[in-house]
């Protein structure tokens, strides 16, 4: 009952001094809105990174020759990864390695009639599209016989198709490209469609990503130093990567660190850890402004106690106990801070939405963060309201009544 009265009282007092209350809240509003917007932007960025990695293939892994090990000597044939090594890896990890091929790529200018363009050609093995969420719109993907026969085949995307041939389905057409200094006419066997991702937006090069049999790019022999894998997502990627790299070192009769691995998931975890740490750090700096806001509340509550000395005296003469006066002022400072917290949360969400809207990324608001922010601001209000409230409660009733 008294609590309800005190809340009513606090609201009346806050309303009575609108400008003053707002200015007092401003510190809390700024603090909370910075914390909320920074953490929201942080978690939105994390989500974007995760999504991009997922579309790219979370279980994408590279196993490669550790160049540090061969820095002081020429590369030997036995250092290189051979087709039989790839088969051995697949045989050793039949459940875990779903796709394995040398990772080779090349770029080339091409021209169809008077239309020019640049192609980025990624060497792939058969079934590549099954693991990387590719959508083959027309024709087919590179297959095993293209690979075995080193056939001049290419799969391009819809954008390239429209660019060069002014139509979506360009299966059967040819593109002349230069591979390892040799001009080849590649026949288009498939056209794929793909949603553009953030990585594509960041990619400023104007080349079209296309896929060709990796064997086409191997000029001298069929060895490689860089292996692309697609792995079983149910396994811990860092453990699996380590196992694969070590096994490869063993069958090649090399030191354990001779081959290394790089996993998309491990990389993503690293980026997210950095992003998370960063937003916590900036958030913590923003939280300092909450302390400043708290001091503002303490200041205005001290003024309020002085202004209302006589009122406190009257209340005491009417039977208010120390506790009652204390509660009245504590609740007032807590409500002041909590309203500031709510306004700050709204503003923070607004800032995050606008910021993310400009970046074209959906905002992620962590409800726990909001709860924490409003709760924390109320705690700030309570903490900084404590001293003024105690001061009010301890006033001597006679002196308070005499106060002019």
């Amino acid at each position, binding site marked *: *009952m*008294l609590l309800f*009265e005190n809340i009513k009282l606090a609201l*009346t007092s806050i309303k*009575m001094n609108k400008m003053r209350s707002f200015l007092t809240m401003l510190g809390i509003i700024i603090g909370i809105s910075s914390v909320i917007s920074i953490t929201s932007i942080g978690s939105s960025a994390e989500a974007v990174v995760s999504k991009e990695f997922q579309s790219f293939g979370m279980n994408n892994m590279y196993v490669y020759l550790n160049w540090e090990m061969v820095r002081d000597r020429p590369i030997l044939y036995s250092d290189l990864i051979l087709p039989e090594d790839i088969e051995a890896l697949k045989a050793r990890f039949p459940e875990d390695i779903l796709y394995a091929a040398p990772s080779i790529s090349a770029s080339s200018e091409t021209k169809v009639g008077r239309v020019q363009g640049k192609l980025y050609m990624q060497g792939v093995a058969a079934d590549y599209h099954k693991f990387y969420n590719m959508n083959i719109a027309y024709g087919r993907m590179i297959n095993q016989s293209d690979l075995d026969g080193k056939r001049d085949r290419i799969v391009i995307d819809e954008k390239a198709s429209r660019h060069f041939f002014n139509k979506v389905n360009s299966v059967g057409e040819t593109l002349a490209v230069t591979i390892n200094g040799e001009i080849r006419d590649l026949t288009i066997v498939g056209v794929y469609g793909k949603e553009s991702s953030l990585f594509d937006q960041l990619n400023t090069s104007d080349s079209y990503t296309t896929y060709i049999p990796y064997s086409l790019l191997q000029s001298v022999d069929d060895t490689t130093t860089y292996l692309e894998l697609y792995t079983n997502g149910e396994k811990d990627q860092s453990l699996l990567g380590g196992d694969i790299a070590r096994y490869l070192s063993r069958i090649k009769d090399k030191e354990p660190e001779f081959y290394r691995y790089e996993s998309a998931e491990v990389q993503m975890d690293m980026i997210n850890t950095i992003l998370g740490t960063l937003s916590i750090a900036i958030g913590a700096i923003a939280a300092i402004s909450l302390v400043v806001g708290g001091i503002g509340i303490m200041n205005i509550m001290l003024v309020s106690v002085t202004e209302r000395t*006589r*009122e406190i*005296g*009257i*209340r*005491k*003469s*009417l*039977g*208010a*106990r*120390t*506790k*009652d006066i204390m509660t009245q002022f504590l609740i007032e400072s807590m409500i002041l801070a909590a309203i500031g917290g709510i306004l700050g949360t709204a503003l923070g969400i607004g800032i995050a939405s606008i910021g993310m809207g400009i970046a074209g990324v959906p905002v992620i608001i962590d409800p726990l963060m909001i709860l924490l922010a409003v709760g924390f601001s109320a705690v700030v209000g309570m903490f900084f309201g404590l001293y003024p409230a105690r001061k009010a409660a301890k006033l001597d*009733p*006679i002196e308070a*009544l005499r106060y002019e």
Partner: protein
Amino acid sequence: MREEIIKIENLTKTYENGEISVRALHNVSLSIKQGEFISIMGASGSGKSTLMNIIGCLDRPTEGSYYLEGTDINEKTDDELSTVRNKKIGFVFQSFNLIPRTSALHNVELPMIYGKVRATERETMAQELLEQVGLSDRAEHMPNELSGGQKQRVAIARALANRPQIILADEPTGNLDSHSSVEIMDIFSRLNREEGNTVIIVTHEREVAEFTDRIITFKDGCIIKDERTGEVA
């Protein structure tokens, strides 16, 4: 035989102000019975207000004892004194001391809020009390919208909120014109006669004191005269 409600024995109050100590009350003994209508007179600085504060449990004596309804006030804690003020004593001040920007009705409700009376009951009671002082039509008015006499009547209604036995009024007519003063004193007389309240009024005006049945006069912290008005006349 009426019961003794206030008993003060050898009461001394000294104010320490740095090096100087001021003796406001000196060895005062006083007995007040339930239902008495008393005025305390004296020049300013005579100690009458100090006595009032001690009777009202706002202040404690330096020496001597004060029994209110037989219980020793000296032994009570500050919070217990708050409860005593809330339940047993109603204050009326010279400067009204209404809470600003708070309606007359809510001002009257205040002691009941601290007395933990339920909201609905509180409001009905406050309305009744305002009617008793003839201000039921001003319930929602703010103190600054009321005249001096009206403010003092709200203050009296507030003093009566928890049905206390004792009403303490410190110069209740000090800020009022003569017409309002008579009105206020009539209310006190009526409360004393009809409701049986013990009413103690501090004043320096003889005309106000004349309304009461017993006049106690202070000088330099001591009682110099304790007379019954009927006897004097």
